[in-house]
């Protein structure tokens, strides 16, 4: 078997054995149960309060808001998951010396990195499939509402978690797990506040303010990908009406998504290089 696949399988198996998957599964199901109950109760309230002939558009507007709230939470959980599982992996194995018997086998160090990356990418895909799939299905089965461009939106959320995971992996090839965790969440915070600055800038038609946001997205493109995902999935009307916490006014362009992909690839290449050259 190819050594990259051996490491990928090992990474995946480790997450299962160490109960990371089980914990995520149990809490994920709890999340979905609460979300579904919430949707159920809210729909009941709306049908009592609102006049029966509430127009179709306004109703789907409300449902879109609820769906986006669910997906936004899941996005945050996915990137937290991405950072947590990958921050300790290289740092921890270098620190404990576990890595020594692995890299002295006839394998490339970059194979070890790529294997871990693939293992984590698989885990994140499963997690996102469960969580986002659960939220979308829960909404769809109860209300028959499906937001537009769901597949593209979920794909973008997946890309966001991959960017986070790759950056954490890169930092973990050089720094300790704690430093890595601190750094990636710090970067995320920076991009998050930058994103809001950009939203306000857009409302106030202030080009300079928008630039601040764009620069922060260039430093760490995670939040920008979410805004693009939200834009893809939001109902046509909310884009016109204005701002909600889960929708986007200043929409990152397709170019920003291309940038994010390149950003992740460069981070992965840097991980190869750092890990291949460092003393273990």
């Amino acid at each position: 078997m190819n050594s990259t696949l051996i490491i990928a399988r090992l990474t995946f198996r480790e997450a299962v054995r160490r109960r990371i998957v089980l914990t995520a599964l149990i809490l994920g199901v709890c999340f979905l149960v609460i979300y579904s109950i919430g949707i159920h109760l809210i729909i009941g309230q709306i049908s009592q309060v609102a006049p029966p002939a509430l127009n179709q558009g306004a109703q789907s507007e409300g449902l879109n808001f609820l769906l986006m709230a669910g997906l936004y939470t899941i996005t945050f959980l996915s990137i937290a998951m991405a950072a947590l599982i990958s921050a300790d992996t290289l740092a921890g194995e270098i620190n404990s010396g576990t890595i020594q018997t692995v890299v002295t086998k006839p394998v490339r160090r970059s194979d070890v990195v790529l294997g871990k990356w693939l293992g984590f990418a698989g885990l994140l895909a499963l997690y996102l499939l469960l969580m986002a799939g659960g939220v979308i299905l829960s909404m769809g089965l109860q209300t028959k509402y499906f937001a537009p461009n769901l597949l593209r939106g979920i794909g973008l959320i997946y890309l966001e978690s991959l960017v986070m995971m790759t950056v954490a992996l890169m930092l973990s090839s050089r720094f300790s797990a704690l430093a890595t965790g601190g750094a990636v969440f710090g970067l995320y915070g920076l991009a998050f506040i930058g994103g809001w600055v950009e939203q306000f800038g857009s409302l106030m038609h202030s080009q300079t303010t928008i630039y601040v946001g764009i620069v922060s997205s260039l430093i760490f493109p995670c939040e920008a990908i979410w805004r693009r995902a939200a834009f893809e999935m939001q109902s046509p009307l909310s884009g016109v009406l204005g701002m909600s916490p889960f929708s986007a006014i200043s929409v990152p362009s397709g170019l920003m998504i291309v940038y994010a992909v390149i950003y992740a690839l460069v981070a992965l290449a840097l991980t190869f290089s750092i890990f291949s050259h460092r003393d273990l």
Partner: protein
Amino acid sequence: MTFAIETNQLRKVFGDNAAVKSLTLQVQPGEVFGFLGPNGAGKTTSIKMLLSLIAPTSGGASLLGAPLGDRTVRSRIGFLPEHFRFHDWLSAEEFLALHGRLYGMSDQGLRQRINELLEMVGLAPFRNKQLRTFSKGMLQRIGLAQALLNNPDLVFLDEPTSGLDPVGRRLVRDIIHDLRRKGTCVFLNSHLLSEIEVTCDRVAFIKHGEVIQVVELKTLEDVKASVTIRAKGMSSETIAGLSQWGQDVRVDDEHISMAIANEMALPDITRYLVAQGADVFAVTPQRLSLEELFIQIVGTDGSL
């Protein structure tokens, strides 16, 4: 001829500190080579350089004829690190299977090899137990099995008996003897002089990352030895006559001790004493122990 290990002025500097100053040595294929030195002499750093875990600052080396860092030659090399930790959530069998696959071994051959090795290190009853439940001694044994999975031509053992009880040490010694019989070259880094003494063909003494002396242990008995003789009825002329075979003749009642050039002198000494009419009860050669040699070569300040 191709050496199993050949290094040429290998050097590693961490900041201002030269952990290994200039390591030059040659290890023959099939020999058991001891690497001996005080704490901080650069032993582990040297091994790590040879295994490409750390990059040398300067100098060069080759393993089994291939330059450092050659990936394909690693399938013929085994390694048991010092202070190792493994993926402790794996069972003994899964652990060996993982490392066997990393060596590129086929599943079929691997299964058989794992059974052999678990049997050899006495862990067959624990094959399905997770490594986290293992004692330090058991981990050392499974680590050793890991280093031998690929039937290597060259094995690096960094302190293989640390954490082992006497039975475990005996086991390691037997395994090393077995490896030598099969023609495997063993590079043994150990603090335990007695262990090096009984297992190694040659030993390099290193200090501050330099080889101070390489000694052939088989010939240790030919170099400097001493002898203790218990005999009665010796005249002072008889005793004086002993000095033709050695120096430092000391007499304490019926015990005589003296330094001799080599053991070949013993039969002559015995014949001489008998011919002089002495009653000889014992002639006991005292080999210079590796410990004495170590202190002589490396000095007592070595660990500072």
